[in-house]
């Protein structure tokens, strides 16, 4: 009897431990988080039995830094932008990720060669390529805008504009809208004249701009008719246009694209599960699967060939990807070297500019 009791207790304990194994993943919410839940979280739980808790934030880098500094980390994996991944890593706030733990491509190419250039850093693994583009309501402009310059042209295309409340991507777009070719944008932003020029261009639409903060806002602003066009993350516009049949069109000219990466904050409570999750979520098939749910390009070369149709079974994903050739004619790769360094200063100036009347 005693033996039986001990056995059942032990079994319960094991059962409890197995059930209690979990990993919390912090991401950006909305259509993007949905794509991750469908493509990564659900299959991960099915295969390993580890529960995945999905947490939303406007920008996960902020709470991560606060948690690590306060010594109270509750998040195991976070999805952050490139400049933030580098900065947090430099400040010793992230676990290093050994590329050897990442699975190779199906044809045997090791992960270090399979990922796109720059997609692997000391502390981060890129999952997707996303892009900041501008989009408009085609029922308002049947002969829609086609270039970045049109976004800043209030005479030809009257109506309010929406932009992210922050310096990043806006300054680049302002210069491209002013006629600077994508390849010369960062060289120009390194100079004071270049920055003045970008702000001068933003000045021309400042009075007619509504500033958004969360990625879910711009499709809402467009749908409400509050803005005639707005900058947005391309996947959000895709989700609204295809899944909700909104008449939104994306203009790829002047797009600013960059990686989103998975990082593991130092002191993550479930470190082993977190590593397992990152390796699982960034394998070839999973990255290709995610493109079924949202139009962000996979970070692995081998995933490209597997990207097919949207989950509705009829929309071809290729033309909606930031990385497809026809969308890259005048595109800019966001420079993390530039933003890691100048983020604080330029955002301060942006705030001063915003507050001044």
């Amino acid at each position: 009897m005693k033996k039986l009791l001990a056995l059942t207790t032990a079994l319960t304990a094991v059962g409890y431990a197995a059930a209690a194994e979990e990993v919390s993943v912090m991401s950006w919410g909305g259509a993007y988080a949905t794509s991750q839940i469908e493509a990564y979280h659900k299959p991960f739980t099915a295969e390993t039995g580890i529960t995945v808790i999905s947490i939303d934030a406007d920008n996960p880098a902020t709470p991560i830094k606060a948690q690590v500094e306060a010594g109270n980390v509750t998040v195991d994996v976070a999805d952050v932008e490139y400049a933030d991944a580098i900065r947090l890593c430099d400040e010793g706030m992230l676990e290093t990720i050994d590329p050897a733990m990442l699975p190779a491509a199906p044809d045997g190419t090791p992960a270090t060669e399979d990922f796109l250039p720059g997609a692997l850093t000391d502390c981060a693994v890129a999952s997707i390529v996303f892009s900041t583009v501008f989009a408009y309501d085609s029922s308002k402009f049947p002969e829609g805008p086609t270039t970045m310059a049109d976004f800043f042209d209030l005479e030809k295309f009257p109506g309010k504009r929406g932009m992210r409340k922050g310096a990043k991507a806006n300054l680049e777009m302002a210069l491209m809208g002013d006629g600077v070719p994508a390849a010369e944008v960062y060289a120009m932003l390194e100079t004071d004249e270049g920055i003045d020029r970008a702000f001068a261009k933003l000045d021309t639409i400042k009075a007619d701009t509504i500033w958004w903060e969360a990625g879910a806002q711009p499709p809402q602003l467009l749908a409400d008719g509050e803005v005639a066009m707005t900058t947005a993350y391309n996947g959000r516009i895709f989700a609204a246009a295809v899944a909700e049949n909104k008449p939104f069109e994306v203009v790829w000219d002047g797009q600013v694209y960059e990686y989103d990466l998975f990082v593991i904050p130092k002191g993550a409570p479930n470190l082993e599960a977190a590593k397992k999750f990152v390796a699982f979520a960034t394998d070839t098939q999973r990255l290709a699967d995610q493109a079924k749910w949202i139009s962000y390009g996979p970070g692995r070369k081998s995933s490209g060939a597997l990207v097919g149709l949207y989950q509705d079974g009829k929309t071809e994903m290729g033309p909606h990807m930031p990385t497809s050739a026809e969308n890259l004619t005048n595109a800019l790769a966001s420079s993390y070297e530039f933003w890691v360094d100048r983020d604080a200063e330029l955002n301060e100036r942006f705030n001063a500019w915003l507050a001044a009347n």
Partner: protein
Amino acid sequence: MMADIAATAGMMPGLTTADGRPLKTALAEAQAKARRRAFLLVAPLLLFIVFTFVLPIGQMLQRSVYHDGFSSAAPNLVAWFGANPRGTEPDEAAFAALAADLKQMKADKTAGAAGTRVNYTLSESRSLFTSSARGADKLEPPFKEALIALDDKWAAPAVWEAMRSAATPWTADFYVIATDFERADDGSLQKVPENQQIYLYLFGKTFVLSGVITFLCLLLAFPVAHLLATLPMRYSNLLMILVLLPFWTSLLVRTTSWIVLLQGQGVLNNVLVSLGILGDDGRLEMMYNQTGTIIVMTHILLPFMILPLYSVMRTIPPSYARAARSLGATSWTTFRRIYLPQTLPGIGAGALLVFILAVGYYITPALVGGASGQLISNMIDFHMDKSNWSLAAALSAMLLVGVLILYWLYDRLIGIDNLKLG
């Protein structure tokens, strides 16, 4: 009274209690026991306040003057700065100290933290540290040439000035930034360029907007509170529920409902356009600007004005006003000379409450303020987000001091005893 007895007892040493002890000690013991018991009763509250209020605020204030990100990572440079006064040209010894510190930073992974601290006062210095630390192992004497070859920014006096000011953990740098100043290359203070000045302007704007909101609240709340105080009970109860109803609704829900009502394609604009009062292209802009912030904050803070006013007005006997009228005062004179002065404690309490709440408000301006309706609290939030906690702390401390000064002024002008919160 007790003290009197004790004093008398002290003068007459012969007095004892029934069990033979001196009366003085017996009394002191009894009083000490009562005091201890009283203290134990308030102890939980005291502990609560110390741990949830005094300590965090103290920590916040400390953060605004203390940052050891650079000084703890660069001991050799700190020593060099200590030995050489401001104005000394950095010599080979200085560069050797820098090279040694960079090597250590690489080993400890502290280059990012150190660079971030210097970057607060001099932008673009962050990557100077991280990139130089990456190449630090290959550095060989003479270090001056080697480091300048690695990155010519090391020759810039501004970098050395910024490192000098970061070399002491106790610093006024964050207050310098928070008042729109910066350090010139020689360490003297100068105003930042006009297109980057923001904090003082926002402080001013925050106080002015809070004043406007307080005044609007007073204008709207006064008649409502008067009605509440004078109506028969069954009507005033209903009115009171209407006043309190918004209180029971989430702040975010109330704010978003205002967005729905007031935005460009919102309910109010649609009604005005469909009635032909406004043209379709002449829609009022009441959201995502200063107007939106004022309207929504006035609504949200209104109950804080109504309730103190109501509690004061209820105690004013109507016979005073009737007496004034019967002595020949006009209704305006009666209001001005008799009624209004008696409501002053309520006005003072309501105004102070609304003003102080408005000065620190941030969710509402963040949601409806757009560009022109931002307050200083949004800037504090921004720096918390960008994890420049020290600057956020400095701004908060300045806000706290501003509010305390106003509180002191109020005490001098009106008197804090003359305050009735309910």
